[in-house]
């Protein structure tokens, strides 16, 4: 098996504290200046993580030229072509709802919430292809904890920017904008769930969801919402875009599950980009050891 089991010790606990703090400062400073420069290829390094897969990542070109980001068009090539019009600076993320300290964060503040980590994750698209992507980001939990969720916070709702001036795809009513996604609180707080701000040691390219996107590696790719502007903690399960568009095809959970077919195609296999033949899809995209317990006792064919 290629999947590493994470231990109980966090990387931050292994590193001596002074080194860790220095690096944290350095990373934040580097990240801040890099982002301010507005350069697409600005460096944004993350420390290695034990949560990374040991597989060979796809090439930068593959990851940045084959995207689903309907705000910039519905073909795979559209985002790379059209996302240049997205202004990622300044950028604010509203974190509100069931929180003791709701707050609007500037992107630079978010980068300082936790040391940036490199997370090499598999990504499985609901369409039947997959990639391995070296993200740079912070655990979503570090942002959520900063606003002190109340006891009523059972779910987290996310929203993508909804600005037709910057996003030509919004002119088409192909989805009910803004793009919305959601997680259960325990999924959101899981250490595998991250907010990605970088890719391949550089600032996240626009077509990949700059400046900040969610990455939930055991769920189909569309759950990992891009270019986030709003995060709401709430008691009820939030509405999500693909579920609204076709409720019988895309469920709220959308965990990668080879045993539950999409109504129109099988999910048993996938084509890893760069490979000729298909490979078998793994339950929870191979992260079952870490996340299967979140769904104990649930009928995953019903809560698909």
């Amino acid at each position, binding site marked *: 098996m290629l999947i590493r089991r994470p231990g109980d010790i966090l990387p931050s606990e292994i590193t001596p504290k002074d080194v860790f703090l220095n690096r944290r400062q350095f990373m934040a400073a580097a990240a801040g200046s890099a982002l301010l420069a507005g350069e697409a290829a600005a460096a944004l390094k993350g420390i290695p993580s034990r949560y990374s897969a040991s597989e060979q990542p796809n090439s930068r070109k593959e990851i940045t030229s084959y995207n689903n980001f309907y705000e910039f068009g519905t073909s795979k090539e559209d985002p790379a072509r059209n996302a240049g019009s997205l202004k990622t600076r300044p950028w604010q993320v509203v974190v509100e709802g069931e929180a003791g300290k709701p707050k609007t964060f500037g992107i630079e503040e978010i980068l300082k919430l936790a040391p940036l980590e490199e997370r090499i994750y598999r990504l499985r698209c609901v369409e039947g292809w997959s990639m391995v992507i070296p993200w740079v980001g912070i655990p979503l939990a570090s942002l959520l904890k900063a606003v002190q969720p109340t006891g009523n916070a059972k779910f987290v709702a996310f929203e993508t920017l909804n600005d037709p001036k910057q996003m030509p795809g919004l002119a088409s009513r192909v989805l009910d904008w803004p793009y919305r996604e959601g997680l259960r609180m325990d999924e959101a707080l899981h250490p595998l769930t991250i907010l990605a701000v970088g890719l391949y040691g550089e600032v996240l390219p626009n077509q990949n969801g700059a400046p900040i996107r969610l990455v939930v590696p055991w769920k189909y790719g569309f759950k990992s919402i891009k270019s986030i502007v709003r995060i709401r903690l709430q008691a009820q399960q939030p509405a999500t875009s693909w579920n609204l568009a076709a409720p019988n095809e895309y469920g709220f959970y959308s965990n990668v599950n080879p045993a539950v077919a999409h109504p*129109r195609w099988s999910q048993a296999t996938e084509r890893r980009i760069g490979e000729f033949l298909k490979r078998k899809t793994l339950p929870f995209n191979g992260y079952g050891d870490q996340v299967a317990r979140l769904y104990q006792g649930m009928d995953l064919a019903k809560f698909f």
Partner: protein
Amino acid sequence: MLLRVLQSGSLWFVLSLLPLLRAVLLLWQGELVNPVEFITRSSGTWALVFLLLTLAITPLRQISGWSGWLQYRRMLGLYAFFYAVLHFGIYLWLDQLFDWAAIVRDIIERPFITVGMLALLLLIPLAMTSTKAMMRRLKRRWGQLHRLIYPIAILAVVHFWWLVKKDLSEPMIYAAVLTLLLGWRCRAWLLGFTGRLKQQNARAHNPHRGQAG
């Protein structure tokens, strides 16, 4: 001279191979991120385009009054079959890895595969009876058999429509073109029908003129 080149079958024969050549070139360059998806889509798209081109011959002939269009129809139809077989072959090999049990399940359980498969199956007798000899042998029944092209084209558009995740704009274009092409035939048929009716009425009301005409 130009007219002769344009009218020669070999020019159109070579032109019809361009989609294949383009796909081979792109594969060879190695720039495609998901080459299998590309050739699957491309072969399917071109099968559909050639089906619609085949169906466009009759309206073109009737509008232009030039019956020469007919000489291209068989070639276009056979190209539709060629790209459809390519499309199916890619599916069998690169998508299903010749896992026959999975293929049968796919055909039965997934409506968009079912209709696509049906369209291809119906194309086979048309391709097999496309020769002059078969045309002579089947006589009137040849024409009846080849009307299968109408349901085949409808099934092919439905196949595309049902596989799309959300953005239907592309299949809608094909559906619109098909509606026009079939609509043209409905109109011609209706006009012919009402024309015959009028003739009959005229004969009934005016027996002398009817006899004279």
